[in-house]
């Protein structure tokens, strides 16, 4: 009985500590907003430097919903949407020092939970029942398709490449990606395809063009919807963007270099600490600078390509090219193996 109690207590404390990643996400978001706020204020635009403080402040305000809303769904669905992101985070290696499930989760299962989380968030907005809410929900559906399609294409084509390479077991496991075979210069097509995938996914992370970062709702958007559910959805949006960055960083992180570096350490937790710090620092830097750079480059490309719906066409063309490059590398390896 005492053991069960201690196990439950230990499990719960580990769960609380998993929220550290949520804090890193919030820290990255506030850093990004700080920089974008500085550049926008130089151009005469006023941007709140502490959007996170607004999010936490609205938690203590009375819940406000439009008259037409389905009250219980609008209040509690954001909680379920945010909760569906936690298992995804828990499956990313180095999510915390205290794994409460096997690290190296399966990418298909990760995408299933991502789709579940998005669906619940979209339903929460639909349940508000106003025309404005419907417009926001429709925008969220478009953003979901633009984000999840290149992610699926990337994961499936890289998994195909590993299958062709003769990897035993689950090719969709995140642990397989740590072998980093798809990023070696000896596989140039796969390397080029993966880099294009990284660019496409980062540039499609939903964000505000007005300098509000990855918050789902801007200050003037859906003013009838306020209080804790709104804050939950804002946190959900920031955390989702951060998890996408973490998952994609996992694809190109130089695991081999850090494994070699850690071989010199005699105490395992030192090696773990170095890996933990290196991985999350990379994610933080990618979120603050890498993602912003991809947004800017995509905007420039969009202006250069002067056709109707240039953003959509660029998205389709780049995703297709990246998929073909990685798959071609896989087919090439299969043919070499067959010839041998």
């Amino acid at each position, binding site marked *: 009985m005492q053991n069960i109690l201690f196990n439950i*207590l*230990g*499990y*719960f*404390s*580990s*769960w*609380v*500590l998993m929220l*550290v990643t949520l*804090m890193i996400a*919030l*820290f990255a978001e*506030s850093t990004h907003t700080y920089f974008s706020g500085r550049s926008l204020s130089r151009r005469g635009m006023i941007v709140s430097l*502490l959007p*996170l*403080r607004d999010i*936490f*402040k609205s*938690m*203590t*305000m*009375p*819940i*406000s*919903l439009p*008259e037409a*809303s389905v*009250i219980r769904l609008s*209040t*509690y669905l954001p*909680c*379920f949407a*945010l*909760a*569906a992101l*936690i*298992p995804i985070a*828990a499956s990313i290696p180095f999510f915390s*020092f*205290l*794994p*409460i*499930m*096997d690290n190296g*989760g*399966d990418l298909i*299962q990760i995408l299933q*939970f991502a789709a579940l989380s998005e669906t619940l968030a979209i339903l929460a907005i639909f349940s508000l029942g106003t025309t404005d809410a419907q417009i926001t929900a429709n925008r969220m559906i478009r953003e979901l398709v633009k984000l999840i399609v290149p992610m699926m294409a990337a994961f499936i084509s890289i998994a195909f490449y590993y299958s062709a390479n003769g990897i035993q*077991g*689950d*090719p969709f*496991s995140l642990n397989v990606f740590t072998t980093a075979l798809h990023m070696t210069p000896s596989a140039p097509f796969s390397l080029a395809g993966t880099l294009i995938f990284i660019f496409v996914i980062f540039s499609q992370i939903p964000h505000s063009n007005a300098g509000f970062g990855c918050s789902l709702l801007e200050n003037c958007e859906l*003013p*009838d919807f*306020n*209080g*804790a*559910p709104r804050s*939950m959805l804002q946190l959900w949006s920031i955390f989702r963007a951060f998890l996408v960055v973490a998952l994609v960083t996992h694809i190109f992180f130089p695991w081999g270099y850090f494994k070699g570096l850690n071989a010199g350490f005699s105490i395992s937790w030192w090696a773990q600490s170095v890996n933990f710090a290196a991985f999350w620092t990379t994610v933080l830097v990618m979120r603050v600078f890498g993602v912003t750079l991809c947004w800017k480059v995509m905007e420039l490309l969009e202006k250069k390509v002067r056709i109707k719906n240039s953003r959509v066409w660029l998205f389709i063309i780049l995703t297709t090219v990246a998929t073909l490059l990685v798959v071609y590398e896989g087919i090439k390896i299969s043919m070499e193996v067959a010839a041998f």
Partner: protein
Amino acid sequence: MISTLETGYFIWNLTAWLKIYLLSAGAFCLLTFIIKKNTGGSLVSKKMMRGCERDIDEGFFEQIVSSFRSRIMQPWFDFPFSHILSIVLLFLLFAVALFSKSGVE
């Protein structure tokens, strides 16, 4: 009950994922429920958005919760560096748990 679904192509640890999801959903719903209880009804008109007072008499427990919120929590929220200090505090908690090694399965 099947706890792990395993084929040649994927391994899904269903129980572990479900446990984390349900625990997280329960915790977030409880948090929202407590906020809803303490800050008023779930459908509030725009005029009552800020600093509204409720006419309903509060019970003994609600009075304690409300005074805890206004006297202890509110100054913390109003403090300009509360978010940074909260992050530092949670990192300390993280460090303590790391060295005590609790909760590892």
